[in-house]
């Protein structure tokens, strides 16, 4: 079933049945890691899609495949409704990346220690020929200011080691918006930052969304952060998308047992100081050896024998709210019946 967003804005990026496998090990002893196992979603204009999952769920791989740091194994990626080839040459990649940019998780390793801030921001403008040569510097300063780096003239000549974590991440943001892309993939952009400056970085990103009309794929392991940032939220588990829907729907009324578990485990002092009990044991399955059925089945309190057999289909719960769980299968049938 096609997973459609609720609103009817034009979609910037759309992925269909996206898969990514990695081969690890050396000759004669290779194993296949199934990092992404067929996921579908789209992101509209000026929309933030929060992608939530634990480490090893494949969420980072999704961003890296979309920005083509990794070649997708199979599936489709559509930019502005047009299908892009799975393998691209350097020139095609450069023009693709004019539209799709990325913010990295670790602000300490995402800036070359030997390059000044100014140099790092000049490069994208030169490569993508955003402005004429004599206007590059003023454009860089403008971008720095937009990313909240004030005063930009001072920041321009600084080297990464002279900046705080928050400032570095703002440089990362400035680098991403410099080419005026349509979509920015933000891979846990605040998880390595101090708590007290995370919100300001998130606010900055939201502000830029309004101002520049950019869309985000906001990747995080923090449900509350995703809720704060996103219009819609998608939940990933072991390379599968298990639930997607409007943020409030997914948070307030989670359908998939895994989403429910995540919510129970997340700290939420606002709803009483006594933490909820988490009684689900086990850990994420080995991605080199995935079970044929639902990947959450071994841990799922509601598991049924048929869950072992095959990965369940996406089920529509509501407009724009889907989940990949057998518990809701009858509901679709009812929906379908209603439609008829």
């Amino acid at each position, binding site marked *: 079933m096609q997973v459609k967003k609720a609103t009817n804005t034009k979609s910037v990026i759309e992925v269909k049945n996206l898969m990514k496998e990695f081969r690890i090990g050396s000759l004669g002893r290779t194993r296949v890691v199934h990092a992404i196992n067929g996921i579908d979603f789209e992101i509209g204009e000026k929309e933030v899609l929060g992608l939530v999952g634990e480490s090893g769920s494949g969420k980072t791989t999704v961003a890296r495949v979309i920005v083509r740091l990794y070649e997708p194994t199979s599936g489709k990626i559509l930019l502005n409704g047009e299908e892009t080839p799975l393998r691209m040459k350097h020139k095609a990649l450069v023009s693709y990346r004019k539209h799709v940019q990325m913010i990295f998780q670790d602000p300490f390793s995402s800036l070359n220690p030997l390059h000044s801030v100014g140099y790092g921001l000049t490069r994208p403008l030169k490569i993508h020929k955003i402005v004429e040569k004599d206007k590059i510097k003023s454009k860089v300063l403008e971008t720095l200011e937009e990313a909240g780096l004030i005063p930009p003239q001072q920041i321009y000549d600084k080297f990464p080691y002279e900046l705080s974590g928050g400032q570095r991440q703002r440089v990362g943001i400035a680098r991403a918006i410099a080419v005026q892309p349509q979509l920015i993939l933000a891979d846990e952009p605040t998880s390595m930052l101090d708590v007290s400056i995370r919100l300001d970085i998130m606010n900055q990103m939201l502000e830029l969304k309004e101002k520049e009309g950019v869309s985000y794929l906001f990747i995080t392991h923090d449900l509350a952060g995703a809720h704060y940032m996103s219009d819609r939220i998608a939940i990933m588990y072991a390379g599968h998308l298990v639930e997607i829907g409007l943020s409030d729907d997914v948070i307030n009324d989670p359908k998939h047992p895994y989403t429910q578990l995540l919510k129970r485990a997340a700290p939420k002092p606002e709803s009483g100081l006594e*933490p909820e009990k988490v009684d689900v044991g086990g850990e994420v399955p080995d991605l080199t050896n995935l079970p044929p059925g639902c990947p959450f089945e071994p841990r799922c309190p509601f598991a049924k024998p048929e869950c072992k057999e095959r990965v369940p289909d996406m089920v529509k719960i509501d407009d724009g709210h889907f989940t990949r769980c057998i518990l809701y299968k009858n509901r679709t049938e009812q929906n379908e019946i209603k439609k008829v």
Partner: protein
Amino acid sequence: MSALLKVKDLNAGYEFTKFKTWAVRNVSFELNQGEFLGIAGESGCGKSTLAFGVIRLLMPPGKIFSGSIEFNGTDLMKVDDENLRKMRWKEFSMVFQASMNVLNPVLKVRTQIYNSIKYHVNMTESELEKRAKELLNLVNVSSKYLDAYPHQLSGGMKQRVVIAMALALNPKLIIMDEPTTALDVVVQRRILQEVDELRKKLGFAIIFITHDLSLLVEISDSLAIMYAGQIIEKAPSEKLYAKQMHPYTYGLMHSFPPLVGKRQKLHGIAGRPPDLSGEIKGCPFYPRCDKRISGVCDVENPKLVEIESDHFVACHLYDGK
């Protein structure tokens, strides 16, 4: 309840050939038997230094500069190396931040558990085995992993093994330094839940260190907030959650967007913490504080005082009270 640990005016930090940092500055607090104390603060605030300092485990260049630490009636600063070694693990144990890497990669889990026991108490091989199985059982790890090497365990299991080791000699205090940050949310929650159950059963005290204030509010009895090497606020968790007196605590608490409820715009705290290698004049939070009183806060560093019952704050806003 009597105090298990009394820390007074502790100053600790790191001594390099050319400079010194004071990561812990004049910290005093008490911990009761069986208490769960959370210490929250951001990176570089000195919380880990404090954790290592109070059990005298700071490795060079780390050093305690001054202060006193009284553990269960013993002055830890005066204990010699050999007696300190004997006290370790038996009286207090520790679960580390990077628990993924604290197990010796070349020794079996069995050997490592045995080692943590056999240098403190005399046990026969079969007693050791019985105890090791018991411990793994306590943290829900199958005893078949006794003969596994650390690299054969998942992150969550390694952490459980480390916790089992920390419980081995029934210590009176376990210090946990961000023990679950590298783990998944769900596994982390489950482990914390289990630790708390064990605490209630076995009666040890916990000092739990993390940057995740919203997690601490839920799990700890009392909470201390650290900033720039100092404890700037300390209170029972529910009191602190209901009312944050120090502007930094207020800002930190409101830096966590709530999970449920209406979405509204929140703000973090602008600026960055001061450099800990020098003298700080006045309140260390002064440059970032939106309630600062110039002429007062930039001149004198406020002391940690009890403003309401059990609620300690170091802030000039409450000077007259």
